[in-house]
């Protein structure tokens, strides 16, 4: 496949949204978009599937809760049962609070680290800034020039109606845009 991409820069989220919609309807392959903040509806416009991170969160939470419950039961009534104020060896109610906290802790950390994993974020990673002001006040749409039908001038013309600020062609390194 080709490794050339077209970067279209917008000034306002509405333009970006509209453009994305249109481009996708045209059947061009949208590689990614870059925005200074989470633009609502952009994921729908780009046709992204809902994230599966929720499952990671759920599983971690369960592990935390069940693991801690078992541990509390094991320490209090199996390894060394100790008479504490005449309470029963294994009193579930008193195990709940800690189990809950463990669940939250694991779920929270689990999903955050999962996010870092799948989005390839790590300390000191060199960011690729497709456009200098993309974390400030510019919106960039990245279109793949893969299919033969695609020719740059017509594309630029097409994007004009979404008052694009500027367009540029880039050569992407391998696997740069997910």
């Amino acid at each position: 496949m080709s490794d050339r991409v077209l970067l279209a820069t917008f000034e306002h989220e509405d333009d970006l949204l509209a453009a994305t919609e249109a481009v996708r309807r045209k059947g061009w392959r949208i590689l990614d978009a870059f925005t200074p903040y989470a633009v609502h509806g952009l994921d729908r416009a780009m046709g992204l599937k809902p994230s599966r991170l929720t499952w990671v969160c759920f599983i971690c939470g369960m592990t935390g809760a069940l693991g801690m419950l078992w541990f509390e039961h094991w320490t209090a009534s199996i390894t060394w049962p100790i008479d504490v104020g005449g309470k029963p060896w294994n009193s579930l109610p008193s195990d709940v609070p800690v189990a809950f906290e463990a669940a939250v802790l694991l779920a929270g950390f689990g999903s955050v680290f999962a996010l870092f994993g799948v989005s390839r974020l790590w300390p000191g990673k060199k960011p690729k800034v497709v456009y200098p002001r993309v974390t400030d006040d510019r919106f960039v749409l990245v279109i793949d020039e893969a299919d033969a039908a695609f020719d740059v001038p017509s594309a630029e013309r097409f994007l004009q109606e979404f008052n694009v600020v500027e367009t540029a062609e880039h050569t992407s390194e391998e696997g740069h845009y997910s």
Partner: protein
Amino acid sequence: MSELNDAHRSPLVTGDKTLGDVTRDICAPMDARPSGLWWAAFFVSFVALLVGAAAVWYQIATGIGTWGLNKTIGWGFDITNFVFWVGIGHAGTLISAVLFLFRQKWRTAVNRSAEAMTLFAVMCAGIFPLIHMGRTWLAYWMVPYPNTRGSLWVNFKSPLLWDVFAISTYLAISAVFWYVGLIPDLATIRDRSQPGWRKRITSILSLGWDGSARTWHRYETVYMLLAGLATPLVFSVHTIVSMDFATSVIPGWHTTIFPPYFVAGAIFSGLAMVITLMIIARKTMHLEDYVTMKHIERMSLLMLSMGCIVGLAYGTEFFMAAYSGNPYEQFVFKNRALGPMSWAYWTMVTCNVLVPQLLWIKKVRTTLPLVFVIVILVNVGMWFERFVIIVTSLHRDFLPSSWAHYVPTTIEIATFVGSFGLFFTCFLLFCRIAPAIAIAEVKGAAHLKKHASTTTPVEEQAA
């Protein structure tokens, strides 16, 4: 839908700003040299911090006896301050998480600093359970780790242990929540600052954030998840704190109403503290356009409702005592209102229930100085609430022979002051080195005018 929301509301950000302006305005305090006011504030709070540190050092080196406690009253300032600070810690998460879930966009103005406040408040809170131990250096025994004692674990039946888990979890999750929210802004700062230490640090901390929509997509999910987790966490933490008392046998402690009562109280005090800080920040850092009177008013109303809930709780306690027919219970509450420590009780009622009623009046809740006075009083009142619950319940319990009185020592007071020192030192530093308002979220939430922004610093460099 956000249109619908905001159509009939006054704008969240006033003074027609562009995206670029937002960035610039919020980052301004970080670029500018600290004002004299900041320096003064910082000096004061740092001195307080040092005083506290000295007191703690002396106390650990000499013994808990340097506090005014005795054989009857085993907890005084220490746990009072602990509960006080934990309470304050709550509003942060509440505002950022709960309001986030309810799509309350106005939160964006305050959530960043509220979260930071949570973090620092919980830090302050955490200190007290640590130093209140007779043998602080053995605090790690609270952690269930494998050991050569056979193995001897910990007592999961003890509310104090639940506390350990609750507080540490809460601290960790709040920290993560805060940091995750900070990442995009760090990236913004990274990209707009010249090469130098700030660029270096931010590029490490921003984890190579590039604003990719795919990442934003996942990010939103996770942020939502964290908010979802943090919300029950907030409630659980203060519930568990309240169980320290509720599960005991001491009349005045042994009350089933405590969990909701404590949570309400916590949110109440938290809000008070948030407002206090926001009013200060607003003035000192010129963020009037972002922290508008609307925000203040909204939060005042929230606080008013909480104040009423707390008031209800106070009343309920007395009703329960009277209704229970338990003579010890009845005595404790009568003693609270009329006994040797009634002054503390009435201070509490005045500050927490009576004074906030003024907020019914729109004029009051829209005049900053008045609001400021009220929130300060609420802070005081909420501290006394904890003091009343802990000390007055202990100082007269079952056997009259062991009734005692409690007077704090200088060491205790110094430690208390120190905790404020720590809190404000951290907060002031935070204002300097991190954006006090969530840039990305404000951009996302506020509806800004459509027109090309004037050139940004980055371009100037380019030119």
